[in-house]
């Protein structure tokens, strides 16, 4: 896992793109490390695809610049950038065989016949499609087309590989398999991956770093575990996983811990590393992950409440507990060690560790 990229390869500076009144990108600045697996994550309309197509050269920025290893590429046409791209829906050339699809970028680059043949074989082996060289794209399944698209985008040793929701058209099981494979492939070839998705699980499982975008702005950048454990805003806390939110008043702060009150309830709250201590009396917002809440028999935990709703999800159960002071609290508990019977209307006790609630920056 890399921290901040040691050697930045690609710089995005103040990238801005407007479509009429809508700002698809609003002053986005970003450094992408050499060999990094970076994911652009956000809901639809967040600007993640616009940012990717701007990096690819298909979207012209209204303002801002792109540099690749110190060279300005903002105005460079897409075919000169040497970035591989895997499209949503694959965009394989329907009139060419699998082998010809993969050979296409090499022919354009005027490689010799022998070199092309060797490289096509290598790439087919890389994605385990050796037996399909002479098939037409229409004869392949979605997952196979995906592999061919990947092989084609990697065949010419691109400086960066751009992936636009490449797994979104596949069914869930295949998607999970391909996630492992993509990660493996990234480790093996060491090329920088920039990956766009709206699927938080995909982002968490594959990325070195995740950029969370909303309304054309970067909300937070960080490693997956860091983002999950220390979201900075309510948007991040709710988009990456789920969260309960409490409006609190700050009472006092010290050593990364803040004491707050939510109505009558006093609670200890975690602060992000390096964040300035909030002033006492300020109102703030606190996020609490559902899986950090414990349920127990009456009297065993700090708060008591009533089960309003529950749904069984196999490995976990989701429970909504209502408490007079805190309102409704979403709890996610593993089913295999549940000590209490989950029934609607049942009185129950619940609580959490002091390091579970997180203080957010936005009020």
């Amino acid at each position: 896992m890399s921290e901040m990229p040691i050697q930045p390869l690609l710089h995005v500076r103040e990238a801005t793109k407007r479509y009429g009144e809508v700002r698809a990108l609003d002053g986005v600045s970003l450094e992408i490390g050499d060999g990094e697996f970076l994911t652009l994550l956000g809901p639809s309309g967040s600007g993640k695809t616009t940012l990717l197509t701007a990096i690819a050269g298909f979207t012209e920025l209204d303002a801002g610049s792109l540099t690749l290893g110190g060279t300005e590429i903002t105005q460079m046409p897409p075919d000169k950038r040497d970035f591989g791209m895997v499209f949503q829906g694959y965009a394989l050339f329907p009139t060419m065989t699998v082998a010809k699809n993969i050979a296409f970028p090499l022919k354009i680059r005027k490689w010799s016949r022998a070199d092309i043949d060797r490289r096509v074989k290598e790439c087919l082996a890389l994605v385990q499609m050796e037996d399909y060289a002479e098939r037409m794209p229409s004869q392949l399944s979605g997952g196979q087309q995906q592999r061919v698209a990947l092989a084609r985008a990697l065949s010419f040793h691109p400086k960066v590989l751009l992936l636009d929701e490449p797994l979104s058209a596949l069914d869930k099981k295949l998607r999970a398999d391909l996630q492992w494979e993509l990660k493996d492939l990234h480790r093996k070839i060491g090329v920088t991956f920039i990956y766009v998705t709206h699927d938080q699980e995909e982002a968490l499982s594959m990325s070195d770093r995740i950029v969370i975008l909303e309304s054309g702005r970067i909300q937070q950048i960080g490693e997956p575990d860091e983002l999950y454990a220390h979201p900075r805003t309510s948007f991040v806390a709710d988009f990456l996983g789920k969260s309960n939110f409490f409006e609190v008043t700050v009472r006092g702060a010290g050593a990364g811990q803040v004491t707050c009150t939510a109505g009558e309830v006093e609670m200890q709250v975690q602060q992000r590393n390096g964040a300035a201590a909030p002033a006492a009396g300020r109102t703030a917002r606190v996020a609490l992950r559902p899986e950090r809440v414990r349920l127990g028999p009456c009297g065993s935990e700090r708060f008591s409440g009533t089960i309003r709703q529950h749904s069984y999800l196999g490995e976990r159960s989701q429970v909504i507990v209502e408490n007079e002071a805190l309102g409704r609290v979403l709890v996610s508990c593993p089913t295999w060690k549940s000590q209490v019977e989950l029934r609607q209307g049942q009185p129950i006790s619940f609580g959490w560790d002091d390091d579970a609630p997180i203080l957010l920056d936005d009020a």
Partner: protein
Amino acid sequence: MKRPSFFRIFMNTGAWLVLAFLILPMLVVIPVSLTDTSYLAMPKEALSLRHYENYFSDARWLDATWQSFYIGVLTALSATVLGTVFSIGCWFLSSRASTIARWVLITPILVPPVVQSLGFYRFWVQLGLIDTVTGVVLAHTLLALPYVSISVFAALANLDRKIPQAARSLGASVPQTVWAVVVPAARPGILTGAVFAFIVSFDEIVGVLFITVRKVQTLPKMIWQGIQDNIDPTIAAVATLLVLATLVLMLAGSLRKT
């Protein structure tokens, strides 16, 4: 067995009548072409091939056929090239202006041929193109362009816009992209358009009557003049041959498909 209902009988009879109405006038030329008389009529005493003989031995008929053929080929070539370039360009731009341009290009279909031919005549006089093959090819190209552009557009409508983007991202310049992925996708439309253009030119008469005098003689013009002057049954022979040629082509086409 159930007795067919009145409605069914009515519909079936109707369908056959319409079919007969469409086909019989075409079939009438076959016995007429075999007539032993020297004017357009049904055979009187015997069947004769003399009008076919006449067609194949008369230089004027053969010249006209040849001229129609190569005007058709030239028209097909120029209309297909221009129409394809136009359609691919519009497809790439896909803006408001390109939609308007497409409509403008289709107007020749909407304007009455006589009006258009009058326009050709007025304009070709100034350009000195009256009674030249160039003039006819130019006029026919304008008439055939809508058909080519419509069929190429139909073929491109199915092309995923990400495919040219993919080609660009893989290193292909715009011309390379067009040649490698857009033209192959448009190919069925281009071929259909070329066939249409040839047909439009091959049986076009109104324009030819306006802009040619004596040097350019096309087949439709010969047939027209043949009817006006001497009711020569060779016309029926030519018509039969054309029907036969069409049938052969259609059969070959459907055999290739199956």
